């Protein structure tokens, strides 16, 4: 009987074999990760630079993000209208994104050579020859300032800013990506040029390509778009996060109807030895969508909050472990107690055999859903490449999930998560601590 079941499982895994990721280096030594798929005449391209806000100089917080968003505002003598029109008339979608660990450039285009090559020429100019004129910096700075003000009207944004500040104490992860009004005021066009020259280099980037190309065209593409990048230096050491959290309760008044509650601490990183134990463990605690301990206790039993979940958000260094809920003022204390007690109890006693079995069935049975589109595959390929995960990460994913035991989950949660060291942030109609 057992054998029969194993056989069935194997068959169902085989129906969704993970995509094959090809890997090579360009003549400049840039790592390229490529998944060839011809079902649709399109490609998804991502360039990921080690140029996230962790690389901001201490007195210039926000420099990484503003550099990233200004790339396409003026380059190689073209203005923003010309650059964006050049993509959009082809039906191509160009985007930039700035995060803590990395800064990205993305392009989605039809794969026909005449269209794609035109889009790539434009993309090459943007990453290689941005102009950074002073008046455009000024415009962008004003936009970012308005964005910062807008965050002040969102209790959720306020709670996460205060949370990161408290759990990361002085590490670059503690500051908002876009910096502060003060740090932004000091940024000059020279800073942008210097940041670009230092971090947008061939030594500091990886490329992921998913779509309708053959290997030869993909190789050619990777060579062409990076041909004008300078070699640059290896970036400096990535600062470590201290896992030593200190218990802290932060209350911020906001004229909202709900109190937003956010609790947690530094969690785990990509490639973490406890990755799979913490991932599966959290799935049972609060990661399983409509089925989890937190969803059951907070929402299904008590109706205290619309959202009730917890998650690890891995980064190069320890990303956050957090859980958030929002509830009306008079039941905020009750909700916080239920939230803390549910997590405490879980760390104390761990999951049941039945819970672990159900979680594994959900995660492994849902594997085909993880890789069901080019966009999703492109996301995985970029993470695998940028964080140096094994190329067979997706192939081995279900195997690793199935291997996780109750003891491993108990051990990992007890070692890594401590409710008594949580940072707790409450934003809403509460008394400030000030």
């Amino acid at each position, binding site marked *: 009987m057992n054998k029969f079941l194993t056989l069935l499982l194997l068959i169902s895994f085989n129906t969704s074999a993970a995509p094959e990721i090809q890997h090579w280096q360009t003549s400049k030594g840039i790592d390229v990760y490529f998944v060839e798929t011809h079902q649709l005449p399109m490609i998804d391209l991502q360039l990921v630079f080690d140029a996230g806000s962790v690389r901001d100089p201490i007195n210039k917080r926000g420099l990484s993000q503003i550099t990233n968003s200004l790339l396409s505002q003026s380059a190689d003598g073209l203005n923003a209208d010309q650059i964006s029109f050049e993509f959009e008339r082809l039906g191509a979608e160009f985007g930039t994104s700035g995060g803590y660990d990395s800064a990205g450039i993305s392009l989605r285009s039809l794969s026909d050579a005449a269209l794609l090559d035109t889009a790539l020429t434009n993309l090459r100019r943007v990453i290689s020859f941005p102009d950074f004129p002073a008046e455009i910096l000024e415009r962008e700075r004003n936009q970012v300032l308005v964005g910062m003000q807008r965050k002040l009207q969102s209790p959720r944004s306020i709670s996460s800013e205060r949370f990161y500040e408290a759990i990361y104490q002085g590490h670059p992860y503690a500051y908002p990506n876009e910096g502060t009004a003060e740090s932004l005021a000091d940024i000059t066009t020279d800073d942008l040029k210097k940041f670009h020259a230092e971090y947008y280099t061939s030594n500091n980037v990886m490329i992921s390509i998913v779509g309708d190309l053959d290997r030869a065209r993909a190789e050619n593409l990777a060579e062409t778009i990076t041909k004008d990048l300078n070699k640059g230096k290896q970036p400096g050491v990535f600062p470590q996060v201290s896992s030593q959290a200190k218990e802290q309760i932060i209350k911020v008044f906001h*004229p909202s109807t709900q109190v937003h509650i956010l609790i947690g601490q530094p969690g785990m990183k990509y490639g973490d030895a406890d990755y799979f134990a913490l991932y599966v463990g959290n799935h049972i605690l609060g990661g399983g*969508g409509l089925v989890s301990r937190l969803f059951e206790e907070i929402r299904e039993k008590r109706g205290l909050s619309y959202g009730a979940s917890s998650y690890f958000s891995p980064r190069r260094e320890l990303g956050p472990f957090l859980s958030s809920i929002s509830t009306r003022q008079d039941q905020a204390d009750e909700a916080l107690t239920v939230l803390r007690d549910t997590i405490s109890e879980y760390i104390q006693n761990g999951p049941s055999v039945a819970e672990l079995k159900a979680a594994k069935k959900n995660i492994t049975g849902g594997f085909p859903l993880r890789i069901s589109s080019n966009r999703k595959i492109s996301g995985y390929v970029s993470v695998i490449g940028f964080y140096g995960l094994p190329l067979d990460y997706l192939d081995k994913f279900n195997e690793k999930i199935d291997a996780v035991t109750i003891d491993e989950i108990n051990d990992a949660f007890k070692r890594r998560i401590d409710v008594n060291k949580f940072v707790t942030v409450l934003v809403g109609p509460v008394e400030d601590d000030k």
Partner: protein
Amino acid sequence: MVKFILALIFFLFSSIAGAQVHEFVLKNGLKLLVKEDDRAPIVVSQIWYKVGSSYETDGTTGVSHVLEHMMFQGTRKHGEGEFSRIIAENGGSENAFTGSDYTAYFQTLEKSRLPISFELEADRMRNITLPQEAFEKEIEVVKEERRLRTDDNPNSYLREVANATAFQTSPYRQPIIGWMADLESMDVADLRSWYKKWYAPNNATLVVVGDIEADDVYKLARKYFGRLKGEVALPPSHRPEVEQQGIKRVIVKRPAEIARLTMAYKTPALKSALQDNSSVEKWEPYALEMLSGILSGGSSARFASRLVRGEEVATGVNSSYNLAGRLDGLFVISATPAQGKSIEELEQAIRAQINELKSSEVAEEELQRVKAQVVSSDVYEKDSAFYQGMILGTFETVGLGWEYAEEYVEQISAITAEQVQEVTKKYLNDNVATIAVLEPISMDRESSGQGAVLPGANSNE
């Protein structure tokens, strides 16, 4: 060059023209739409009911959405929460959503597990139990959802007011989540009659997209849904909007940091254009979609190019129009002023753009650019089985029929510069406009004047 590019994109488009839609109707009236897509070994199953907030009446607004929540609270056969547990154990992802014109439930699963979804959905189409205790808890969840999404979000709050101001008699004035007072007074009996009235096979469309054969899906649908009984044919609720007789202006004062402007113009849906003796030409809704693309379809579009850059009067300006509505809707422009710019300056700048579109035709290259984007998007959207299902389900459920989704690209591609000018002149006029402004008031405890809490927030005495 631009023309050549567009011709090339069209050529590519026609060479991959997607999978065909298979339509079946069961004897009990359930419609089934299947799109075969073997890109990944998965299947998306969505069941769409013709009911949503625009079917509701004063006093019980929000009932469709509350019922959507209660559909997860058990049937005679499957107890509370069991639906979600079974889907989870099978590796599925699931959820549901409610709109003005529809309520839909979906699961995505590895392809062999489609029968599991069918069995559970067929069961809850007719057999939910609506326990009093579960309702008392769930209505609190919905109130928290309303506080989270609307009451504590000044921009959403503005949108709700703008909508309720623009429409006087059309049910589109009602928020999908319902007014708080109606949520307070709702009871299980309201839900029971709502469920009985609308949840029947002859008021639903089952949409399946994935690596499956249409005939097999039809057999499965007959097996699981075939024995369900239909209800008496349901009259669609329809109270038309009275003709607007002049501009409406409304100011919303909320604790906030940033002002916001919304300009909403009454516009016809495609459905109106298709009626006999309609004063709306069939191409007009497509020209309105094109107009929205000209204004805000990308970074080279007029709003980004001229108002965000150019004049630097806004930090963001967006337009939206949706031709796939059950009833006539709105062309909405929403904007946030740049630092140091007033709402008045912003409104004047937007008006100047509208006036220019009325007085002169858009350039050929702008038109071509939007068409290239529409055609390419149609290819990109095939990357998502879920999205393909969404489109079919929406068009079918608002009463257009899925065939209109299929001809969208072709219709947009035929729009001319002159037609864009014509719809701007015909519809973007003050007589049918509603202008809503968010005026921030201080967020300090004292000056926001709220004591600790906004009025109406604390509700459960």
